[in-house]
């Protein structure tokens, strides 16, 4: 299906316009504002899907701001959308839409909601901009928009000291990370006089300064993605933000993860097969580094999740472990670049991105539902909720099984791809991965027991099921999880496979811009 080119900037511009209109609409009526925000995001999601269907059939699309064509690409700001970008855009738009529908009832009793929705829309614009842009500096700008908006949202419940503290931690980490990114961009600009990813990628030399830039970019973006050992902020902010924000934060971290992939695969794509120090190719070096980080993330995430007593912090540590699985798949894919199992690992890693977003997102929504119903997140004080909250229980079980990678849900489909490829790199990797996923199951069964099972507590006797809008949004995600789990082939062939090909096929990404210009 062919769509006009200007749909690409609209995907970022519409949430931006919506963000600034929200305070004005909010003057009229609160309900109207909620409807307005949902309509804006739904419209945006439709545009993303239209664009996706176009990109997946016809290939990469570029859009230049304020100019007719690609002449002088050095000074133009351009968006370059390939299958990987649109894959991430789909995740973000689905999660944000779900979160906004969920917020309708969840945030009902809060004040200052016009700012809340404005920030959500800004965050959406930032995330979508990060994944769609084809320009390093532009990427930095959107990164900062995302950080600022998410920090303000993390600290939204400003009456709680923990929220403010988590927000401060988050903004320190992300400000530092963003400045690292800017410094790396400056290093690249100073050498090659270009900011465009495709242009930079076509001329990159892997000089000493490039190595510094690569390290800075990976460290900064991995820090924002919450990989161990830079994960300290993640449980705090996920745990202290309102649940509807936690799910958006999941997709914001994933946008940073996308940045890591874009940098390694596209920006440094040309030099990946160079021989670095000690006669090891660059891709093997980077790949093993990422695999090592991934293993540590998986283990630390699971072990720390075991000892948590707060529902949301526990899920957040689960999310750290899940991040490890993505990095494991991608890292194995980089290490074994060009082999069949490397491709499978890459597929698995990319497929796990969307699965993790859905699974962890669903768990956060369930945690939010429990908080809404009981005003409690400590697992020690919860119990016996399965009697009164039947639907929430079912959704939690779906999320639990999906996170632990049990068949027939989506987590299994992607983890299977990761297992059956990484063991060829080294059997220990797959063994630890399988085991950790079983441990994760144990962790969540513990949660299930302490929150939903057990005798009925007297103070939760009158707990009611949560309102329909929250049930609806949880139900939507649960449905997607089950569908993805039952028909993984469809998703892999239609969305994941093109995304993996887009990552590997960096030369195509370059040729879209460089052939037209310079």
């Amino acid at each position, binding site marked *: 299906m062919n769509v006009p080119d200007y749909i690409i900037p609209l995907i970022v511009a519409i949430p931006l316009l919506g963000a600034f209109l929200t305070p004005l609409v909010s003057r009229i009526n609160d309900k109207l504002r909620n409807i307005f925000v949902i309509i804006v995001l739904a419209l945006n999601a439709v545009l993303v899907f239209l664009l996706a269907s176009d990109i997946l059939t016809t290939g990469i699309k570029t859009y230049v701001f304020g100019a007719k064509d690609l002449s002088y690409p050095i000074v133009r700001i351009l968006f370059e959308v390939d299958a990987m970008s649109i894959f991430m855009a789909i995740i973000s738009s689905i999660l944000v839409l779900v979160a906004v529908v969920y917020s309708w009832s969840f945030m009902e009793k809060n004040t200052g909601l016009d700012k809340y929705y404005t920030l959500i829309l800004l965050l959406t614009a930032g995330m979508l901009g990060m994944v769609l842009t084809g320009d390093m500096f532009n990427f930095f*700008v959107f990164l900062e928009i995302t950080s600022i908006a998410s920090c303000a949202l993390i600290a939204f419940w400003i009456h709680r*000291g923990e929220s403010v503290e988590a927000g401060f931690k988050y*903004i320190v980490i992300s400000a530092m990370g963003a400045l690292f990114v800017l410094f790396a961009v400056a290093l690249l600009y100073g050498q090659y006089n270009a900011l465009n990813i495709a242009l930079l990628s076509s001329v990159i030399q892997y000089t000493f300064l490039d190595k510094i830039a690569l390290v800075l970019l990976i460290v900064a973006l991995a820090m924002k993605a919450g990989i161990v050992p830079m994960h300290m902020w993640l449980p705090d902010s996920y745990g202290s933000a309102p649940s509807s924000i936690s799910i958006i934060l999941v997709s914001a971290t994933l946008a940073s993860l996308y940045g890591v992939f874009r940098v390694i695969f596209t920006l440094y794509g040309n030099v990946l097969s160079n021989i670095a120090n000690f006669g090891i190719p660059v891709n093997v070096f980077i790949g093993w580094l990422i695999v090592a980080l991934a293993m540590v993330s998986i283990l630390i995430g699971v072990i720390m999740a075991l000892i948590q007593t707060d529902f949301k912090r526990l899920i957040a540590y689960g999310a750290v472990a899940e991040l490890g699985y993505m990095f494991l798949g991608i890292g194995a894919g980089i290490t074994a670049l060009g082999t069949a199992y490397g491709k499978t690992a890459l597929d698995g890693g990319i497929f796990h991105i969307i699965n993790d977003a859905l699974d962890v997102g669903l768990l956060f929504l369930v945690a939010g539902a429990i908080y809404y119903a009981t005003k409690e997140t400590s697992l020690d004080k919860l119990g016996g909720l399965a009697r009164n909250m039947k639907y929430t229980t079912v959704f939690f079980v779906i999320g639990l099984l999906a996170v632990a990678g049990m068949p027939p849900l989506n987590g299994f489909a992607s983890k299977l791809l990761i297992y059956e490829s990484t063991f060829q790199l080294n059997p220990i990797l797959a063994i630890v991965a399988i085991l950790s996923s079983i441990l994760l199951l144990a962790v969540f069964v513990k949660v299930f027991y302490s929150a939903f099972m057990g005798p009925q507590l007297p103070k939760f006797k009158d707990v009611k099921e949560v309102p329909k809008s929250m049930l609806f949004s949880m139900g939507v995600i649960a449905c997607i999880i089950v569908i993805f789990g039952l028909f993984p082939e469809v998703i892999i062939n239609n969305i994941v496979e093109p995304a993996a090909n887009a990552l590997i096929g960096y030369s195509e990404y370059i040729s879209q811009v460089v052939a037209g210009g310079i």
Partner: protein
Amino acid sequence: MIYNIPYLAVAALILLGLYALIFKRNLIKMVIGITLIESGVNLFLITLGYRKESIAPIYTSSPGGIMSFPVPQALTLTSIVIGVAVIALMLSLVMHIYRHYGTLDARETRRLKE
């Protein structure tokens, strides 16, 4: 040598900022650390665009001669604008932390542990 002084200043600023960020316990000082890093990066960007004996890149009424690169200046301006927002946000959060905890010591404002 004289042309390397800005780069040395960049390194000094960034290292100072990192020092403040890592070793200082006062939250305001941490914010200052971030601003120092930011200034360092901005200075680096501006320095990249400088050419020897150049004039400001303004076309109207220009005295003629070589101009310095306008792109890094535009980048720096954008970065400064973003910096203002980040610092404002940080300072307001520090204010709220002070209201909740009654102290600015990072060691004591730690309810979120583990």
